[in-house]
């Protein structure tokens, strides 16, 4: 973790690579992180480490404000790329990433932070109210003929009960030749009640119901 020993060339080189695409060690403003590394260095880096040199001069210009820079000073090991120290031998190309193995070189702290964040996320997820999917269905219940008792028909329809089913308003619509059909609406929970169930149970009242149709099916 970190840049290794930044008093020697190999450490400075790592610092140089790190700073190639970053202006500061940590984030986008000068902070105590920069101060920490600055003070740990043994003087300005050589010219060949152009990025480190640039960074060094830049931070140097903030010398008078070192105390007031944001952030907390941490031991320098905790800054910089998360790859291992020189002891583990930086695989010179980090291309050979073991996709299925665990990274034994993980920093403990990074692990802890990740575990914390995961726990917080799970908590938030479980607290979130589960939204139940509901739909509004309008059914057309057709009787055999114009002499069928529509009130009875409606009553029987409403006796169909199951978990997740709520009957709503109904009305009688004239179809022709004196025949009326019952248009009734209900709210169902998608997971619990299916339209097949509704149709079957209503057509179960064979004496009264000729057929059932779905007029409208809207998501609520």
């Amino acid at each position, binding site marked *: 973790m970190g840049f290794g020993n930044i008093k020697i060339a190999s450490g400075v080189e790592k610092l140089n690579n790190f700073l*190639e*695409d*970053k*202006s*500061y060690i940590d984030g*986008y403003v000068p902070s105590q992180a920069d101060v920490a590394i600055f003070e740990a260095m043994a003087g300005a880096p050589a010219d060949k480490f*152009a990025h480190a*040199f*640039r*960074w060094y*001069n*830049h931070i140097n*210009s*903030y010398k008078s404000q070192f105390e007031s820079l944001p952030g907390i000073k941490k031991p320098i090991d905790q800054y910089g790329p998360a790859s291992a120290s020189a002891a583990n031998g930086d695989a010179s*190309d*980090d*291309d050979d990433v073991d996709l299925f193995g665990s990274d034994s070189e993980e920093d403990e702290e990074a692990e802890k932070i990740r575990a914390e964040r995961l726990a917080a996320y799970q908590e938030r997820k479980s607290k979130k109210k589960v939204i139940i999917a509901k739909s509004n269905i309008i059914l057309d219940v057709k009787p055999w003929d114009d002499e069928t008792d529509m009130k009875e028909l409606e009553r029987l329809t409403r006796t169909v009960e199951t978990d997740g089913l709520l009957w709503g308003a109904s009305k009688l619509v004239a179809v022709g030749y004196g025949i009326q059909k019952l248009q009734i609406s209900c709210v169902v929970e998608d997971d619990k009640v299916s339209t097949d169930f509704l149709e079957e149970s209503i057509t179960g009242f064979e004496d009264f119901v000729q057929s059932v149709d779905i007029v409208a099916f809207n998501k609520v």
Partner: protein
Amino acid sequence: MDVHPLKDDLPVILRFIDKAGPINSTDGPSTTIVKLAEFCPNFINLNGKTAFNRALVWEWLEKRLSFENGSAKKLCKCIEERLQGQVYLAGNDFTIADVVLFHCLKPYFCDLTHSERQTQFVNSCRWFQHIQHTSGIMGESKKIPFLKNNIYV
């Protein structure tokens, strides 16, 4: 890609400086920017802390104008050289020169290929990535991601 006229960027820059006040129409765009940046509530010393920095800011504004019909690539190369040894364009602090050139070159940066970003314009990309994160500068648009690709290392 050609560099577009400075007055096209003016509204965005002025919004950044937080000035919606009256603009004297006889002043050129550079003068307007510098004049209003003097009083920006969010940033101090946008025009440069020292006399030297201020001169640098003016130089950059001039350069930007002189490139108005030229290629963005050349302007970018100019920046690249300057940023080799510096973090900001005009000295060690954030100035209005950074803002102006940022907006000028934003379309150019969006179109750069990864290879160009990492080989030719290393410093400019670093600077661009850095400025992107300054509050208020991007306005409504999304940040452009800059990723280090190991192929070019």
